[in-house]
């Protein structure tokens, strides 16, 4: 049946295939070991490819997976075999750019773990139970950042105004392009 585009999972791994943050929306992987096996296979299949400038894509165990790497972080989004690949990549790009905005351009594993709360909130804002909630990176980052207003919060040393400044800068850049 034609239905709403469905995201099966969003996965963020480090350069050794370890979990940084993952969120599964499909019950195809009922146990943690099933999830880990999937991530491991996914990682080993994609690690040699170059997905740093443009998002890459692969077919894998009857799923479509789009992925993008930066520094020591590997971003993945999984959808059904018949899904529109460009919708999946829009979600991936939204997640990728939002994390970039929230981490103020310092996107690496260390920074991601230190701001894990932001990453988790980010995941929460992108997809709800498999349904795409928001794909615009500025909107996602805006929603996440506005939630951690407290400037002194140790897990995110920078204030919201700084985060939003970066967001604005990014927006300006994308407009000038």
């Amino acid at each position, binding site marked *: *049946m*034609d*239905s*709403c*585009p469905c995201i099966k999972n969003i996965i963020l791994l480090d350069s050794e295939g370890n*979990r940084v*943050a*993952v969120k599964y929306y*499909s*019950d*195809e992987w*009922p*146990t*943690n*070991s099933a*999830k*880990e096996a999937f991530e491991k296979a996914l990682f080993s299949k994609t690690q040699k*490819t*170059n997905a740093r400038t*443009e*998002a*890459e*894509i*692969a*077919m894998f165990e009857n799923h479509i997976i*789009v992925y993008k790497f930066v520094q020591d972080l590997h971003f993945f989004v999984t959808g*059904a075999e018949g899904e*529109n*690949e*460009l*919708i*999946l*990549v*829009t979600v991936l790009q939204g997640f990728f750019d939002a994390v970039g905005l929230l981490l103020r351009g310092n996107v690496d*594993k*260390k920074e991601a*773990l*230190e701001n*894990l*709360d932001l990453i*988790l*909130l980010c995941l*929460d804002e992108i997809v*709800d*139970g498999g*349904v*795409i*909630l*928001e*794909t615009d990176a500025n909107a996602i980052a805006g*929603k996440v950042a*506005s*939630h*951690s*207003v*407290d400037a*002194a*919060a*140790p*897990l995110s040393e920078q204030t919201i105004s700084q985060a939003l400044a970066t967001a604005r800068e990014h927006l300006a850049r994308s407009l000038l392009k």
Partner: protein
Amino acid sequence: MAQPLVKKDDDRDEEVEYSPFFGIEKGAVLQEARVFNDPQLDPQRCSQVITKLLYLLNQGEAFTKVEATEVFFSVTKLFQSKDLGLRRMVYVMIKELSPSADEVIMVTSSLMKDMTSKTDMYRANAIRVLCRITDGTLLTQIERYLKQAIVDKNPVVSSAALVSGIHLLQTNPEIVKRWSNEVQEAVQSRAALVQFHALALLHQIRQNDRLAVNKLVSSLTRGSVRSPLAQCLLIRYTSQVIRESANNTQTGDRPFYDFLEGCLRHKAEMVIFEAARAITELNGVTSRELTPAITVLQLFLSSSKPVLRFAAVRTLNKVAMTHPTAVTNCNIDMESLISDQNRSIATLAITTLLKTGNESSVDRLMKQITNFMSDIADEFKIVVVEAIRSLCLKFPLKHRSLMNFLSNILREEGGFEYKKAIVDSIVILIRDIPEAKETGLLHLCEFIEDCEFTYLSTQILHFLGIEGPKTSDPSKYIRYIYNRVHLENATVRAGAVSTLAKFGAMVDGLKPRIFVLLRRCLFDTDDEVRDRATLYLNTLGGDGAVVETGADVKEFLFGSLDIPLVNLENSLKNYEPSEKPFDINFVLKEVKTQPLAEKKAPGKKPTGLGAPPPGPPSTVDAYEKLLSSIPEFANFGKLFKSSAPVELTEAETEYAVNVVKHIFDSHVVFQYNCTNTIPEQLLENVTVLVDASEAEEFAEVASKPLRSLPYDSPGQTFVAFEKPEGVPSVGKFSNMLRFIVKEVDPSTGEAEDDGVEDEYQLEDLEVVAADYILKVGVSNFRNAWESMGSDFERVDEYGLGPRDSLAEAVNAVIDLLGMQPCEGTEVVSPNSRSHTCLLSGVYIGNVKVLVRLQFGLDGPKDVAMKLAVRSEDETVSDAIHEIVASG
């Protein structure tokens, strides 16, 4: 205290791998979570602790029921804090903990307060949390707020309510359906994503009302949909409408085609692609309709984005299967993709080219592929091999270059599956293209010279034995075959001996040489090899005289075994060494498992080496054949289900009886499979007397006695009952075997003329509800579940009482329902507190049934279960509940 010292060293090593969560431990974090209970809350510290808890959950750490409950209660305390950031984390945490029903009550009021808050963020998130954890009863209380939220002027709040509606529609459709006015209003929203979510929900609400969907589509295709995602949805719904109306409009243009074509000029690539794909998938699409879609896909082929190239080439690959000529325009772009960095794209490009290529381009293409093969994975290579096989069948004149290609890649490195695909392809080409036979066989011979897979070697040897003798010069294969006898393991050696014998049987001129070779095999170290050599020497007349091979010998060598191996195995097991040799003619030729399907079907297309063994489904066919051959049962209609045999006697008794229950729409037939295990007896006129006094809805209508039951050759007797049509009647039957027994003289094997009537008590038999459900799996449960719709959904909760384990409870319910577990959900991970199991089946009357079982441990041992049933018929949904309720 050596422990901390070691840890310090570790710390130093890991310095590069610094992580704020290094050395984190669940126990310690749970201790830390006590800060949630402090009267003076420190929001930052609490946020940190929640992050740590979420980190643990995210890493797959499981919380016990007690731990989860404890964390949940302390988290609820955090609603006192006014800190926005903390509240946000609290929401996420509650969702992750997925609290049980009685826990939900604890947070309901706090969440309801947030739901009516002035802060948009509170409203949006509280809605999402509450809808995630709530059950139907609470929903009616908050329905009013949800309806308001759908039309809230803040798009985030509106989206939150709509997306929650999409989820709730699965469990509480009747409530969500009442919101359609508000949802309809939201479809007109200016906010892009609100429009997307509203459209998705509105369509799901109306998806079973074809007219309403039609109206929705025609109004929206005229208007302006702003969000690209919503536009993609609209395209999907439109093609659905086109599909369903295709039968009505025989003449004129396809409705809505103009809309799809217009979408090809949309500014968002996602929409362009969705429309192009929709056009290529139209039923009976014409080449005129295809052209604009192919044109945009062709542009995508040269995009700098891999995802776009992949999407385009994947779609074109599919089009090439049905409309190869429409895709030929893209061939030049496609050829440049052979060297694409992304191997998936390259493989799809190659296989597309192989489908669209013409005879003249084959050689050029093969050259390009040869370079490409060395650096792709086996799974892609298999795809390429299969494409080449079909190309070769399409252009038989090109067999030489294609066969050469296959033999070249056969010699290169590769795994079993890949090699098997190549060998299968060569075999098929040999069978279908006579000119390719001799070269093909030689390629195979060369391959077994250096083949590491026993399975492939034996299969090829077998194939050589059949095809080799029919070639112009059979002698040239002998060397290859005999080399195997020297160099291989016992299995392959035995196969080679059989192959040699076949050459000997077919080609008289080779007989003397074959005899010499076979005689050498008599000194082999392996029993099987020696036995085979001895057998063949004897059957072929290896005493030196070259005589023409008899027809019965040929039949023995080349004929297929027309008895099921399982039966043969059983008979051999039952055979006790005695003076009387084992007689293969006594082996049951039918029933039980595989029937006559193995008999040579002349027109059957070979699918490669070693025809796939007929799977278990043939059991049903066998039963069906058997039953329809009995006139008394011929008018019972179609056989719905046959149970597995149920033993009615203990092992090692005089008479072994098992029964198979055959279920028809309004009849039940018991097939009693009887075996007489006493050599001195012959049973005649065997029947089973069935007492159905504990099965009120059943009435005996016919029985078919077994005329004679000699020692150790199973026979069947049948009893048929009538029952109410389409009703899953259950009952208990007691059985008595009645027969006339005659003494048999063991020396002559002849029975006496006079017999004595006798009876033998059998165990009782039950017809249960599960007998009326066929195990039929679905590949994608979620899709099946959603497309089934919730019209006839029935949900209820059951307490299963104390159980040994969750897994035991899950299996008990699966057995009770007799349905097929889907997606491996019958496996319960150890120590889990809850489990979801998905079942699928077909209920009597051919009604599809899907079941979602949610188990949870309630207390230390008690298991609670939520049962959601969807089917095409509400009485069936109810019936499933009844089975569970009474089971």
